[in-house]
């Protein structure tokens, strides 16, 4: 009898030990594991790091592809989508211009990404805060655009302006009224816009900003297309 009890005891001890050693992972643990390794922004971050080191058609294509991937994941999130559109716009500009791109372009790309990452990872951030961060990056984007145009005017690139049909340079200046107008007008527009912002509700303000950004991006594409066309013609 005593022997039997001993055996039972021993067996239960072994069972306990085995249970302890080979217990199943709790559901929480497994979920965490997937979350850390598979964040949707991980690929985008990696590509941006590689662009810090090397700007080629290959790395820029990787960036643009990765942006598309992330757009798919966040297709419901307008704020994140806008961030991604900014990234894509500057990315295309750098890819098209390479060494002739404005030196600040990669800096703005990194700044936009950092803001995007903070917004995407911070679950607790309010919508208003997110919009604020987005608007800050839009501002930097617009400033970069101004600098690009100023630089072009300063350099007075003859290949672009001389001997080309008048229609070509004109669209660049006309079709980007929102951002490419002279600094003064721009400043006035900005103060008026800011005044309007103060009056709007957060949703209205955001919709307005989104509309602005869409205009900027459309204009950017037009300018880019015009530039590429002229570049091809000058060759």
């Amino acid at each position: 009898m005593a022997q039997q009890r001993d055996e039972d005891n021993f067996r239960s001890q072994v069972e306990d030990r085995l249970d302890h050693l080979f217990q199943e992972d709790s559901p929480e643990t497994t979920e965490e594991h997937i979350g850390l390794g598979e964040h949707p922004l991980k690929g985008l971050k990696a590509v941006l790091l590689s662009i810090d080191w090397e700007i080629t058609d290959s790395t820029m294509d990787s960036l643009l592809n990765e942006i598309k991937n992330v757009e798919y994941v966040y297709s419901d999130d307008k704020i994140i989508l806008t961030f991604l559109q900014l990234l894509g716009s500057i990315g295309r500009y750098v890819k098209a211009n390479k060494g002739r791109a404005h030196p600040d372009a990669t800096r703005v790309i990194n700044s936009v990404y950092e803001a995007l990452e903070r917004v995407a990872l911070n679950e607790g951030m309010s919508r208003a805060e997110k919009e604020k961060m987005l608007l800050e990056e839009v501002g930097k984007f617009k400033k970069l655009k101004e600098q690009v145009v100023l630089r072009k005017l300063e350099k007075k690139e003859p290949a672009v302006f001389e001997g080309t049909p008048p229609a070509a340079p004109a669209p660049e200046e006309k079709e980007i009224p929102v951002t490419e107008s002279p600094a003064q007008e721009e400043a006035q527009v900005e103060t008026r816009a800011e005044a309007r912002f103060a009056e709007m509700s957060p949703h209205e303000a955001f919709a307005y900003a989104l509309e602005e950004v869409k205009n900027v991006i459309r204009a950017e594409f037009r300018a880019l297309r015009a530039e590429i066309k002229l570049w091809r013609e000058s060759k």
Partner: protein
Amino acid sequence: MDKQYISDTDGQRTYIFTPAQLSKIEAVLAEDLLDVGVHSVTLIDMAGNIISTMDNGENKHDLYSLAALAAGNFGAVSTMAGLIGEEEFSLLFHKGKKENIHFSKVTDEFLLITIFGKEVSLGFLRLKVAEATEKLVGVLKPGS
């Protein structure tokens, strides 16, 4: 004076730079590199001699020592590349807190040393260095 080399490239003894060549070199360094915000750019030979150097007037360094060390460094690293079966490395770059330094071969005899800060990203700098290198190769060819 037409000829730049006094003897063949292998075992060559002297390289003579005409004022025209040096002006062209300075123009390339200024336009392609200094103008985009690097702190200084120096063209040296693999013996450690300085051919031409330009800086932005703010960050001054002991360039003669840097040139000697850069030539030695590049030579050492190139030898290492050979030892691991590589023909050459495509990037030799040292990252500091405020100043970074990038080395790039311009033909087998010359080296471009660029010192830059946060104003320029490495990726962008490499694009500009590639552009400058192509132009410099044209200037450094004998008979140019």
